[in-house]
């Protein structure tokens, strides 16, 4: 994979930012930011693939992330057998009935030709179906939620290693995307944005309130990890020896034995934290590089060329016999799947699933700023956008505090204006995000690392 000169500059900038933060604020902080940056980069790549390659807008990012997070819960949380006993059959019955209902509606749509009759049949079947399903469903969910509501109150999961959920998350998101795509694709872009935003709100709403599935607002905590726990590391001989070895010169300079032990203990604790975060970082980077590699390959392939042709001139593509709607659906689903993977990774990193944390401002809109600022249609641009924007988002607060202090250097520490400004520090990052977006859209609308114009 060849990079242009300016792309190497971008990569260099990203790397140096982390080293910079590492020195100033500590490696722990730097790694925390790095991990979120990588996840953001993956989300951005997902959105970029559908928008940059094919011009299909995806404002439902929040929903797809949530589906990925749900996958993490369902794959890794141990099953709660009591809940399954209480409501498992009920849920199963409801699901089967739902499938029957959908099939019935599809059948009606295919066989009944008279439009009015079709509406009448559909309405009757749907209303009746919903009432029947509700009966089983509500019974089942109530019993499930009654099982140990403080700690459980839901079905639990499959008890598999959480890393599988990263792939399962992709599939969950893809499934939801398929449904959305069938309904909404073909609408004009800004309209599609509103619709995908709306549907993602519905998805998150469901997750927030169907407690039997996800514990809703009670959240799921204590998810399993793919990397070691700090506490285990701190007690592992090999780790202790490693830390001792890495800091031998520093330790040898301390004469007092108990002091040396103290320092060593601190180093071990810090080191365990860094080790865990670094492990995550390596895992995440592997995923990111895999996605990046395949995304780039796809972009350069004949399929990628076809996507660009459709994007740039849909009517012509249609005339040439390309099934535009089908291609759009494929790419929308793929993009959403990648976002789903990121969602699972995010929940893995946090170790908890908080449905009420999925908000459009924080997820959908910020990701889009990453896409636009980074450069739509360019995967490295997507990564760069993800890194830079997330980095700015996090560092905006300390930076703002610094700037405010500098600007108000003449004022008393108790000055009302100064205090009010310092209180408002967390809000300034919204201002920065907005301004960055506006500036980029005005002066560099293709993004910082724009799509490479290929002459084939």
């Amino acid at each position, binding site marked *: 994979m060849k990079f242009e000169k300016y792309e190497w500059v971008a990569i260099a900038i990203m790397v140096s930012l982390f080293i910079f933060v590492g020195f100033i604020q500590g490696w722990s902080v730097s790694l925390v930011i790095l991990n979120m940056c990588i996840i953001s980069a993956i989300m951005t790549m997902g959105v970029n693939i559908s928008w940059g390659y094919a011009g299909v807008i995806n404002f439902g990012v929040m929903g797809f992330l949530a589906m990925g997070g749900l996958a993490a819960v369902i794959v890794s949380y141990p099953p709660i057998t009591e809940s399954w006993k209480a409501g498992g059959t009920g849920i199963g019955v409801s699901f089967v009935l739902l499938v029957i209902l959908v099939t019935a509606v599809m059948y009606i749509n295919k066989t009944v030709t008279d439009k009015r009759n079709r509406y009448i049949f559909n309405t009757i079947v749907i209303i009746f179906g919903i009432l029947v399903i509700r009966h089983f469903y509500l019974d089942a969910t109530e019993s499930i939620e009654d099982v140990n509501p403080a700690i459980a109150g839901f079905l639990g999961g499959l008890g598999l290693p959480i890393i599988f959920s990263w792939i399962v998350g992709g599939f969950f998101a893809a499934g939801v995307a398929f449904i959305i795509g069938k309904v909404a694709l073909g609408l004009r872009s800004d309209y599609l944005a509103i619709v995908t935003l709306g549907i993602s709100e519905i998805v998150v*709403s469901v997750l927030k309130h169907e407690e039997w599935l996800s514990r809703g607002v009670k959240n799921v905590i204590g998810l399993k990890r793919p990397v070691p726990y700090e506490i285990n590391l701190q007690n592992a001989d090999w780790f202790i020896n490693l830390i001792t070895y890495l800091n031998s010169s520093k330790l040898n300079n301390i004469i007092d034995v108990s002091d040396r032990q103290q320092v060593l203990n601190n180093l071990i604790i810090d080191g365990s934290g860094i080790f865990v975060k670094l492990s995550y970082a390596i895992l995440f980077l592997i995923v990111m590089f895999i996605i990046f590699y395949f995304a780039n390959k796809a972009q350069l392939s004949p399929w990628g060329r076809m996507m660009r042709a459709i994007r740039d001139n849909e009517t012509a593509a249609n005339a040439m016999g390309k099934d535009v709607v089908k291609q759009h659906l494929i790419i929308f689903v793929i993009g959403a799947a990648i976002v789903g993977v990121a969602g699972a990774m995010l929940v893995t990193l946090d170790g908890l699933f908080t449905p009420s944390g999925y908000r459009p401002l924080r997820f959908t809109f910020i990701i889009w700023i990453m896409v636009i600022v980074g450069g739509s249609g360019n995967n490295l641009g997507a990564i760069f956008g993800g890194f830079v924007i997330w980095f700015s988002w996090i560092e905006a607060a300390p930076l703002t505090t610094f700037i405010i202090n500098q600007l108000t250097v003449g004022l008393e520490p108790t000055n009302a204006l100064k205090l009010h400004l310092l209180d408002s520090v967390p809000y300034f990052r919204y201002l920065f995000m*907005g301004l960055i977006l506006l500036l980029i859209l005005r002066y560099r609308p293709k993004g910082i690392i724009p799509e490479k114009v290929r002459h084939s």
Partner: protein
Amino acid sequence: MIDFLNSIIVLLNFIIIPGISYGSQLALGALGVTFVYAILRFANFAHGEIMSFGAMITILFTWFFQSQNIGLGILPTALLALPIGIIATIILCIISDKFVFQYYRYQKSVPVVLAMVSIGVMFVINAIIRIIIGTETIKFSDGQKFIMKAKQFKVMTGLNEGLALKSSQVITILITILLLTFTFWFLQKTKTGKSMRAFSDNEDLALLSGINPDRVVFITWVIVGVLACVAGTLYGLDKSYKPIIYLNLVLPIFASAIVGGIGSPFGAVVGGYVIAFSEIMVTYAYKKFFVYILPSSLEPSGLVQLLSTDYKFAVSFSILVIVLLIRPSGIFKGRVL
């Protein structure tokens, strides 16, 4: 007979009056969005924040008036501050247009670019509001809160069910009727209003007829400023003011405009009430109502609630999606997308 009256009161109290009140707020919001969509031809994601800004300025001046002991007696002081809020909101709209949106209009950018730009504006205004007033919930209504209290009503009529009527609800309804009447009179009966409809209908022909595009754009933002500020303030008076709430309102507002028929002012208003009533009716627990209406043998044991109130929010989008499937141009056949 008494049971029947009680059931009516239940409906009025929990569905009809809140529905009309919330529907009016959505209608005003949707009307503002529709003006921008029909004339400036883009979906303005910043509209919620414009409403929030208008409400904020009104609140700041309400506090000022309250501190100076200037009031309106039984009416909320906010009404006095409202004109100032409106002017401030109009200025905000004009500035946003001049520094941001105008450029893309001249470039004839595609609507999706303008939508993205409006997201940037949304972030900026959101930040400014939070920096100025924080993120806490603010209650700023004063004056007589209730025109009719539930207890009062029960005593007056001897019925079991009480009817509560908040002054903010009545004010909302009255102001909405006034604004809507004025807006439609303006659009249908005045030369300027007609020229704006012409501009929305066929821009090239409108230009050829000598209609001044800059003037049309200016008047549009003035109208949007008025509608947004009033809608935001009324919502804050009625429920309470919390800066981040307005982001959540953007979607039901868009849903109202689209369901009613995108680009149609009348549709936007109807859409507002449709969405409001749907949200309330689909999530209301009808048990009480049925207890009054049905003979005791048929009384329901459950809550008789279609969807839990948690889903109120999701109802708007579900309606939007259903409308898209069945009748994409909306109820009043706006522009088909």
